[in-house]
Every structure is written in structure tokens, then in C-alpha cells.
């Protein structure tokens, strides 16, 4: 990644954003200190900050982030493999699209946390159950975007590859797979956000370890500052993944295709 020296324009932008957050936190602090609500219900920012520091220092938050991201990674990689396979199948076979394609669309409309009861019956209260929920959350988005990505490639590009000597396999490998990337990036981003939401819900409901679980611990301890702190961490992890992985992928697409994916 390249960083250009901050120009005057981007300096002002940073200043504007910083000022905005200073105002938000000051407003939060003022409301909390007005004691309209009990500090047990509405903590001040400094109390949330202390709780966050404490939970970082005692290792609870880092361990939870690790557990959560590991589940996401395993579930997401599996759903990428399954989603790609389904998408390619549905794009290349009319028969598959009429049958499996319909199921994919149907399952896509199902909020994936509703798979949890079934997952618990199948796998028990295990990691497998929660990974299954993550997988069901994102596999369909990825399958649908893979199919749309393949079908959106102008046939002319494959033909051009053919006239340059590409075999059918080479045309698939060097034209279809790269050509589907812009649509795929969008589908993978959507799949990630579905999986992320269902993982948080799943962790809240039953499993040990993870950020969702830590949120529940805060509730059990009646520690509102900890609940706030963990929620902020969840936001930061989500935004960081979005920026680092999908933001980068989107810039890659924009540089080449000339439009935002």
C-alpha cells in the first residue's frame, strides 16, 4: 500500500473528523455527569475507557477477539469454498440454476441465526455449531455473487481470449476468474457482514469465548462499562476488517476497472 504525504486538504479532513469525535465524547461525558440516568445504566466515557483498559490488560478482550476472528476465519473460508463451487455450478449449468439456484436464493433470505437451534441439535454446544451458523450466513451471498460475476462477464472477452489461442480451460482460468472479481468483492463483503452479525448473535446465545460471549459476561456482572467497552471493540474489529481487507480489494478493483465495485 502506498501512502502519500498528507496534503493540506487531507490534514483539514482529519482535523474535522477529530473535532467531531471530541464533541461526541464531550457530549457523552456531559450527559453522563448530569446524572439523568444512574451510572449503572449510562456510564461516563472515562469509566468505559478504564474498563476497556482493564479487560485488555487482563487478556479477556484480546482472547475474545482471537476466538471470534478464528471462528470467522474458519467459517468464512469454508463458505468461500462452498459458495464459489455453488456459484460456478449455477452459472455453468441451466439445470443446476433452476434447482440448486432456487434453494440458494431461498436460504439467502433466511436470517442465518435461525440455523442455530438446528446446529445445536446436530453438533451440540460446540465450535462446529457456531461455525455452521457463520457458514450459512455467508455461503449464499458468495454463491449468488459468484454466479452473477461469471454471468456478467462480456462473452466477447472469452472470445477474444479464444482468438489469441486460449483453450476453454485457459479462458476460464485467465478470463472468467479474474473477470468476476468486481462482483465477487461486493458479494464477499456482504457475506462477511452477514456472517459477522450471525456470529455475534450466536456467541451471545450460547458459546463460550468470543466477543459476543464477553458481552454476555458484562451483562451477568451488571457491568455496564464493560458492555459498552466490548461493543466498541466489536465496532472497531468490524471496521478494521472492512478497511483492511475489503477496502483494499475495492481500491484494487477501482484502479483497474475504473469504477467502484
Amino acid at each position, binding site marked *: 500500500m502506498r501512502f502519500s504525504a498528507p496534503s493540506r486538504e487531507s490534514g483539514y479532513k482529519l482535523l474535522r473528523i477529530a473535532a467531531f469525535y471530541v464533541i461526541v465524547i464531550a457530549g457523552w461525558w456531559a450527559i453522563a455527569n448530569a446524572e439523568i440516568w444512574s451510572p449503572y445504566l449510562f456510564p461516563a466515557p472515562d469509566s468505559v475507557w478504564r474498563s476497556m483498559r482493564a479487560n485488555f490488560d487482563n487478556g479477556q478482550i484480546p482472547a475474545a477477539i482471537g476466538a471470534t476472528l478464528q471462528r470467522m476465519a474458519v467459517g468464512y473460508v469454508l463458505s468461500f469454498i462452498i459458495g464459489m463451487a455453488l456459484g460456478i455450478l449455477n452459472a455453468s449449468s441451466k439445470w443446476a440454476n433452476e434447482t440448486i439456484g432456487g434453494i440458494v436464493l431461498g436460504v439467502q433470505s433466511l436470517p442465518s441465526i435461525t440455523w442455530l437451534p438446528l446446529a445445536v441439535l446436530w453438533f451440540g454446544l460446540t465450535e462446529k455449531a457456531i461455525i455452521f451458523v457463520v457458514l450459512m450466513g455467508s455461503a449464499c451471498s458468495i454463491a449468488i455473487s459468484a454466479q452473477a460475476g461469471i454471468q456478467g462477464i*462480456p462473452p*466477447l*472477452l472469452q*472470445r*477474444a*481470449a*479464444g*482468438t*489469441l*489461442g*486460449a483453450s476453454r480451460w*485457459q479462458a476460464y482460468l*485467465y*478470463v472468467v476468474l*479474474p*473477470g468476476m*472479481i468486481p462482483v465477487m468483492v461486493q458479494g464477499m463483503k456482504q457475506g462477511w457482514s452477514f456472517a459477522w452479525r450471525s456470529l455475534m448473535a450466536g456467541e451471545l446465545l450460547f458459546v463460550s469465548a468470543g466477543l459476543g460471549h464477553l458481552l454476555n459476561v458484562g451483562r451477568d456482572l451488571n457491568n455496564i462499562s464493560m458492555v459498552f467497552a466490548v461493543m466498541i471493540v466489536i465496532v472497531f474489529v468490524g471496521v478494521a476488517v472492512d478497511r483492511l481487507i475489503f477496502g483494499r480489494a475495492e481500491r484494487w478493483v477501482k*484502479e*483497474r*476497472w*475504473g*469504477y467502484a465495485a
Partner: protein
Amino acid sequence: MTGIAERNEPVATAPSGATGHLLALTDITKRFQTARADTLALDHVSLEVRPREIVCIVGPSGCGKSTLLNIAAGIDAHFDGTATFEGEPIKGMARERAVVFQEPALFPWLNVRANVEFGLKLRGVSKADRNSIVDQQLEMVNLTKFDRAYIHELSGGMKQRVQLARALAVEPHMLMMDEPFAALDAQTRDDLQMELQGVAGRIGATVLFVTHNVREAVILGDRVVVMSKSPGRIRRIIDIPLGRPRTPDDHDVADFAAMVRAELQESSNEPRYAI
């Protein structure tokens, strides 16, 4: 333009195939059948292309000229009649007959250099050889400075130059061009016609060039094939024995263009042709 002298030299090597033709299309008939219509796109069309000549096909929309090119390129395999290239029946697409399309059929995820390199990579040409071939091709079409640009950053004329360089890089035995300049502005089109004459002359290329622009056909073609539509047939083949480079302003070009236009108008009820 150094190409003229080379072009007029006799062909050193005997062309393959007993006929002396590089491309031979014989008795080609092509029907398009849909639920509502049954169109005879090509009706017993025969055309032969000799090595190192530029043959332009001109005709109204729907006369089957692009269909004929697709058959010659191996893109369209469903037709009656025989199509041979270098004496062998045409079976599908092959880099020996590389195509430049009307729409810029370039790969957006690859920069200009990688687009030109595409066909070479498929053949497993070594990195060093690829680089030198690509450099040479980019220089030929005046795009050396843009080798790292992505496709969306190029103008329409530059995109067609990249297509030409990409097609020439695979060393085709014949170049198929399907209305490659039709979507360009007049100035760019004139420039590219000049460049194509120069490039084709220099390397002694054999070209099948489809256009609906009569003057373009006369500027580029050693022979101009005039087609009529419904059904698609060859009406006349006109030799253009003019020196090169030819420009749109040459009187001789204008005279031949008038002749071609007259031929087209006789064959059709649509007297509207671009000049």
C-alpha cells in the same frame, strides 16, 4: 512509409495449401433461425484470400459480412460449405487467425502491457522473449509510454491500438478485423487507417477487414468485396491497384469509392452510405 516496397515484392515462400490461398471460403451458407424469423445471412458465398493481401468486405448492415468474418475466424462453427485455412479445415478459434473486434475486447484487470502479453503467456513464451515482443508491438502502435496504464484510462483509439498490438503479438498468419474503427471519431479513424497501412506493409500482414465505410474499404483494401443483403451475397469484388499510403483525400481513392458506392446502391434500396 517503408512498407510499400516490401508489400509489392513477390511472396518469397510458396503459400501453404495447393490452391495458393491462405484462406478459402467455399459455398458458405448460413441461416439464422428464430421462432419468428428465418434469415439467410449468407447464401453460397465464396471468397479466397491470398497471402499478404488486405481484403475489405463492405456492405449494408445485415449483409452477413461480420458473420463471414466470424466463420473465417473460427468463432462461428455452424454453417454449410467449406472453410479452410492454410489448406486445413477451420476448426474453432486459433491464434493463427487473431481478431480485432469493434468493441474494445480488452481485459480490464490487466494493464496495457499485460493485455498485449496475454496470448504469449498462454503459449508459454519465456519472460525475456515476451518482454521484447511486447516492447516491439507497443512501439509499433505508439503506446510505449502507456504500457502501465489500465484500459479505462485509454481513449477509444488507444484501446483499438492495444487490440491491434495484442493480436499481432501472437504472430497470426492472418489478421481478422471486424469494423475495428467504426466507433471512433473521424480524425482518430484517419490516423488509425494510416497506421494500419504502415504496420501491415512493414510485416507483410494478410488482413480480412470488415467495414461499412466505403472510403475506409478503398483506403485499406487491395481488393474490396461488395456484399448485398437479404440474402447475403457477394455482388462484386473490385481490385484497388493504388499505391500506398492512401489517404482519404486522394482523388483516386474518391473515384474508387464512388465506384463501390454505385455498386452498393444498385444492390440495395437503402442509398445511405458513409463516405
